[in-house]
């Protein structure tokens, strides 16, 4: 029988090694520990990570657990992480912002708010996994609906979509 502390160690090892989100079900399967037993352990771990000597945390989003750095260290880390990725153009950022806040949204809606054509920008964002096709709008023409993709939270260092700064309405 695996001990409680060992389960914690195992969970940390799994989340670290996977480097991607892992569902509770998958943890149950890998660890062979019932969900009812695992859930409180995960909660306990999330609290323990709050201590000052820890630089990482577990975030829970949509039933998936992910290990990431604490926001307290964002300036230190952004200094360190070399910008290897291509910069996003301001057109891309604007389009992405629209999709992030208004998802699901069609290309026509994006274009009407931005006042310019955006096919190229959208396909660029799709290619990078920052957005994805999330459905079809049930109107004439059956336009594709876009939403943020898996890469979005990673690229902008957000623990969840709820962390997007609020848009104050004037």
């Amino acid at each position: 029988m695996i001990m409680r502390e060992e389960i914690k160690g195992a969970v940390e090892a799994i989340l670290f090694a996977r480097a991607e989100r892992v569902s509770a079900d998958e943890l149950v399967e890998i660890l062979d520990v019932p969900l009812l037993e695992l859930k409180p352990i995960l909660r306990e771990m999330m609290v323990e990570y709050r201590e000052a000597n820890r630089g990482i945390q577990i975030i829970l989003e949509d039933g998936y657990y992910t290990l990431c750095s604490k926001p307290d260290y964002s300036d230190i880390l952004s200094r360190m992480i070399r910008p290897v990725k291509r910069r996003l153009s301001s057109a891309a950022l604007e389009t992405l912002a629209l999709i992030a806040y208004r998802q699901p949204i069609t290309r026509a809606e994006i274009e009407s708010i931005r006042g310019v054509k955006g096919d190229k920008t959208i396909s660029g964002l799709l290619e990078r996994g920052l957005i994805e096709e999330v459905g079809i709008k049930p109107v004439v023409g059956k336009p594709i609906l876009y939403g943020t993709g898996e890469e979005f939270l990673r690229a902008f260092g957000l623990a969840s979509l709820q962390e997007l700064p609020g848009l104050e309405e004037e």
Partner: protein
Amino acid sequence: MAYLVDLEAFHGPLDLLLYLIEKNEVELDDIPVAVITEQYMHYLSVTGDYDLERMGDFLLMASYLLNLKSKLLLPRAIMSEGEEEEDPRIDLMQKLIEYKKYKTAAQWLLELENGLLPRVFFRQASEDLVIEEQLLTNSVSLLRAYRAILRRMPEADELYQIPDEDISIQEKMQQIMLALNNPAREIWMQQLFEGISRRREALALFLALLELIRLQKVTAIQEDNNEDIKIYLRVELSHDYA
């Protein structure tokens, strides 16, 4: 020039308008389309940057502004209930406010990306832990898929067995001229196509016939709607065809 605007830095008419308004350089009643256009032409002549796509973007922007101006100049239509049509400036103002919201949000995203706002970092998945992918398929389903394609496209096999060079329209023209080398100097069009089973060959023959008609070497005459078409030789056979 009154307005020195770096046109390249702007993304669309709303972006440009927002900038001009915020700098208090223009009023919505008086958007300097001519000046902006002049500056753009100047920019083009100096840089020689004739990027068609960007020029298209500029045209779109200029026409948007012109449309707005014209709406402001024209007396507003009186609706049936006696209400005035909505001031286009109100619509534009709303658009600008909406656009500005997302421009600000885009700035946040940029700051998040660069760590200027508190953010978290994720680990790059290490290469040695690639999740193996197992395809739920087998070679039989592959074969089935291929057969399905073949059934849909009966011509497909043939298409790839005949090299393009095989059928020359020039040759087909010669063939038609030779077929007309009979005492009557005429032939039913259907006869020309006898023995031709391949679609590409039939097409080549037809194109050859059209070309001969264009060159006025032959004439095609259909006496009646239900009659077959007859091809007549118009020129004397040259030694090329004999």
